[in-house]
């Protein structure tokens, strides 16, 4: 419905800068996750878009409209909070009707809209209950219905699922995605859970220390991280550092690691990121890169096996394998890891 964009936004609290020069576009109908560690400024950015925090500089536009100077109540946003934030003195139905009343929608029309919204979140029979008589998951669904019933221009969610247990969280993720797809609502979702971000999003923006370090489709970021931080924060990664030489990277121990990506000029330092599941302890077709390593620890997690390894020069590596036949390598085994040049991704430090 609406494209949201943030231009050149910066914010400091007192003397502490929290956001620097944020430029981001949230295209119409997409589900974007703001992903980053605690304190990276995700909530602050979301609250600037919502209007709870005024940026020190820059602009926020929702649709065609520059909303930088418009207060929260004039922005037509749907918002969901981690603490549900239902009005405890109103029934579920009155909670949902609250935003409609503010828009002058009353009587039968409002009742119909409330019933539809509650139906959408499968809580049709709960209209007369008080919020305190609902489970956490149900409360969160009421909050979703309340946010959606006003047909907002954009849906803003600040870690809305992190108070729920794992099972319920997965259910709500599916629900949220279904409703978002149905309505085609531009959605911005703050999370520090990379798995959640990967499952839900069309796009991910990774924040670090108040900057967006990389944004794009989840698979783009995952397969081609541009910085060491992005590679580590979204998924796991191994890093090998050396000097650029002959289209590859020469490690201190003399091994030449090949990559299909373009590198800096010869003689400069470079770091390569290799995803742990892209490595293999057995030679593969086309896997021309290899390093020797010794197994330090074996972690058995049912369907997946993780190994922590160490190369002769002391670099720590990880290896993930699917548990295909139940045979484990042992701690102390020396193995050789193989991977293809296409999986060596040069990253900035």
């Amino acid at each position: 419905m609406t494209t949201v964009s943030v231009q050149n936004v910066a914010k400091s609290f007192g003397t502490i800068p929290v956001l620097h020069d944020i430029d981001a576009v949230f295209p119409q109908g997409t589900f974007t996750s703001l992903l980053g560690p605690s304190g990276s400024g995700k909530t602050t950015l979301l609250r600037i878009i919502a209007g709870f925090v005024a940026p020190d500089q820059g602009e926020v536009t929702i649709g065609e409209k520059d909303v930088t100077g418009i207060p929260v109540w004039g922005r037509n946003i749907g918002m969901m909070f981690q603490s549900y934030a239902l009005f405890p003195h109103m029934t579920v139905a009155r909670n949902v009707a609250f935003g409609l009343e503010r828009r002058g929608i009353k009587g039968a029309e409002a009742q119909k809209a409330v019933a539809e919204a509650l139906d959408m979140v499968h809580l049709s029979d709960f209209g007369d209950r008080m919020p305190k008589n609902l489970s956490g998951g149900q409360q969160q669904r009421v909050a979703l219905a309340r946010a959606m019933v006003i047909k907002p221009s954009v849906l803003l969610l600040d870690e809305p699922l992190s108070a729920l247990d794992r099972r319920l969280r997965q259910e709500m993720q599916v629900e949220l995605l279904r409703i978002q797809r149905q309505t085609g609502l531009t959605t911005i979702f703050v999370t520090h859970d990379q798995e959640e971000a990967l499952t839900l999003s069309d796009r991910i923006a990774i924040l670090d220390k108040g900057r967006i370090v990389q944004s794009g489709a989840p698979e783009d970021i995952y397969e081609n991280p541009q910085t060491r931080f992005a590679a580590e924060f979204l998924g796991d990664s191994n890093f090998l550092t050396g000097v650029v030489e002959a289209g590859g990277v020469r490690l201190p121990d003399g091994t030449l690691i090949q990559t299909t990506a373009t590198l800096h000029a010869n003689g400069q330092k470079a770091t390569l990121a290799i995803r742990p599941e892209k490595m293999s302890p057995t030679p593969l077709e086309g896997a021309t890169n290899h390093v020797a390593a010794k197994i330090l620890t074996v972690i058995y997690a049912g369907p997946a096996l993780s190994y922590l390894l160490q190369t002769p020069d002391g670099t720590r590596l990880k290896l993930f394998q699917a548990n295909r036949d139940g045979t484990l390598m042992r701690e102390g085994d020396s193995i050789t890891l193989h991977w293809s040049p296409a999986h060596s991704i040069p990253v900035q430090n």
Partner: protein
Amino acid sequence: MPNKATPQRASKGARILPQWVSTTALLLPAYGWLTIAVFLPLLTMFLFSFMNKTPMGKAPIEFTLRHYRAFIDQPYLIKIATNTLLMGLWTTLACAILGFLAALALVRCTHGARRETLLILILLPFWTNGLVRVFSWTMVLRENGFLDNIWHWIAPAAGSIAILYSREAIVIGLVHGYLPYMILTCYIALVTIDDAIIEAAQSLGARWWVILTKILIPLAAPGLISGAVLTFVPVIGSFMEPRILGGKVGVTMGTVIEDQFTQAFNWPLGASLSFTLLAVTMAIFATFSGVLRRGTGGTA
């Protein structure tokens, strides 16, 4: 699990007292105190209110219902009672508005050490002697007093604005004394409201007056009600403020009752008037509590 474990362990121990013994033992001090501090004096007064005269000296004592007819026998008491209730109403209303706003400002606009300092400052009237507090208001409100002088300085041509010895003066003095109760009860109610609830309302399109009337006041209703009770009850029984700040107009049920005990030496009449006042107050609150409960959707 812990619920199950306790009786098991208890049954293993050979000599465990039955539960009612420990319950009684724990409740005894509280009930004992209530009996001594509340129940016995009230009962004594209740007995007095049926006596024909103050039980001192040798004359025999008869029991009578005569004092409970005071409002019929002495119709001027009805006017005094009405004035007293109005005084209670205005004081409570003023306290409710000022107290709620002050508590709101404390909760929404301050935090940390500054909030604590302000709370202590608000409680200061509690720690000043009541008599000193009230007399200082006479200095402020009287002719050529503090307020009057400032007014003359601003507008020399205008008349005096001294309001000492008026109903307004009484209400001002009473509000000053009882405002902290209201601020505290409202503060406690407001401070528990999650910021996210207000933000959710804003995101749904609510402006400040909608937030105030639809969210904050209903959610703080328990605080407002208990504050109103804590203010109204002592105010309609007060006698010091009406006497000192009201002068001739300061005749209230409180002063009439006090007179019966200290001047007229008619304790039974004083006692019966007190109990009548108590009954009226309780009737008022019984009526209001029903209305308020319906008004807040059964959450109170």
